């Protein structure tokens, strides 16, 4: 009978936990870059130009129907093949985490464009017109009137995106990234996977509290900000 050894779990836990910073690195960069790309695509989809709108729509459809692992493989193997063939640039020395960030930027770019679009539509058009009529420029109106409300409305979606990234990014161990799961897998392979179960328990103890905590945090945040919104409305009326 194989038993679970507590001290071994602790060992795996302590040895993989420092690699959380790799996880956080790609979560942070993919989130920022992905939302920047998503903003552009959302703008493209709402554009009056039919060609641009169709292009943005096509991008979203294409990326949303690709499994993340296939996208990861395509970026990892394809990007260097294309750059070597076309520009004679070798990407082999780039750290693996860069490929992961590129992959999830593409992925989040598609899903966040939907988030941004629905957030934009949730703010009533009258507000934009009111802001323009008091003499704000288009940019000012967007920054001071629309953006704060859009951000508040999309907080639950942003939380879901972060949790999705933490969980889905663990896939990157197949291209050799040493994030939390990758490091634990590597350590377990050193022991010939004899204690794989202890590794899995240790990983659960790392991932579960983080994602459950984030879920809680974002639901609290959502409620806090919503409350403020209601108070402001009541004062006005």
């Amino acid at each position, binding site marked *: *009978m*194989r038993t679970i050894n507590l001290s071994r779990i602790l060992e795996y836990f302590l040895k993989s936990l420092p690699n959380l910073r790799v996880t956080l690195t790609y979560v942070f960069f993919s989130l920022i870059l992905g939302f920047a790309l998503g903003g552009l695509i959302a703008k493209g989809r709402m554009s009056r130009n039919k060609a641009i709108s169709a292009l943005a729509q096509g991008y979203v*459809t*294409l990326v949303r*129907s*690709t*499994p*993340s*692992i*296939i996208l990861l*493989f*395509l970026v990892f*193997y*394809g990007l*260097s*093949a*294309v750059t*070597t*063939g076309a520009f004679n640039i070798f990407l082999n020395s780039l750290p693996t985490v860069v490929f992961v960030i590129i992959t999830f930027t593409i992925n989040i770019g598609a899903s966040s464009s939907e988030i941004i679009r629905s957030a934009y539509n949730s703010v009533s058009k009258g507000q934009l017109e009111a802001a323009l009529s008091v003499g704000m420029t288009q940019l000012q109106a967007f920054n001071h009137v629309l953006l704060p409300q859009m951000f508040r409305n999309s907080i639950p979606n942003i939380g879901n995106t972060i949790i999705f990234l*933490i*969980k*889905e990014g*663990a*896939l990157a*161990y*197949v291209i050799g990234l040493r994030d939390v*799961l990758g490091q634990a*897998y590597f350590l377990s392979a050193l022991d010939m*996977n004899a204690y*794989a*179960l202890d*590794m*899995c328990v240790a*990983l*659960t103890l790392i*991932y*579960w*509290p*983080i*994602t*459950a905590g984030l879920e809680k945090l974002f639901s609290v945040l959502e409620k806090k900000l919503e409350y403020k919104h209601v108070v402001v409305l009541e004062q006005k009326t």
Partner: protein
Amino acid sequence: MNVDWKFVIEAFPQVLAYLPVTIELTVVAMTISLIIGTIFAYINFKKVKVASQIIRTYMSLIRGTPIVLQIFVIFHFGPYLLTEMFQKLNIQADVYSIKPIYYAFLALSLSTTVSIAEAVRAGLESIDKGQFESGLSVGMTEGQVLFNVVFPQAFTTAWPVLGNILVGLIKSSSLAFMLSVVEITGYARILGGGVLRYFESYICVFFIYIVVIKITELIMKKLEETKLVYRRRQC
């Protein structure tokens, strides 16, 4: 290394030949999850004392861990657990003759069950409590009320979400290669590994997934339209 488009054309039919495995994975995992997920949703909805606590913990655990980790657990722990069980029950069977695809069914249904349970529960909650009571008061049994009154409406409400879950499942079925199941991703990996043309073989998989998911979405939409007509007539 340049992109070899001739290899893509050559590889495409070979990869496509493994599409039935992907479809089998999806259909079986979806059926299992639909049944178990609905039971879970109903238990959660009725707030059965201990059972709903256990189910909620299970759902939080599955939602809180990466699917890769769940696959690891099944890969390393599944055969071992089955061996123990067979020894306890005195069954003479070789655990290692079980095909890996059965483990993949389990791995894929774990997380899909959770999403379906949530979608169906939301559907159940959208139904007026009065409908249960009126159903019972005209002399239907609880089972009759559930299957003739409640579930048809709950599934109509949950239909778009169920469609998204199905698409997600098709996408996650690509992870079955970690359990050494040879479906389209697994075969592309083997094919690409043999001649070091990973990119070209994954391009084929990319195209296949896009077409399959587009067709699935169209079918779900068509079904939704017929279902909505049904709902309108009912009103």
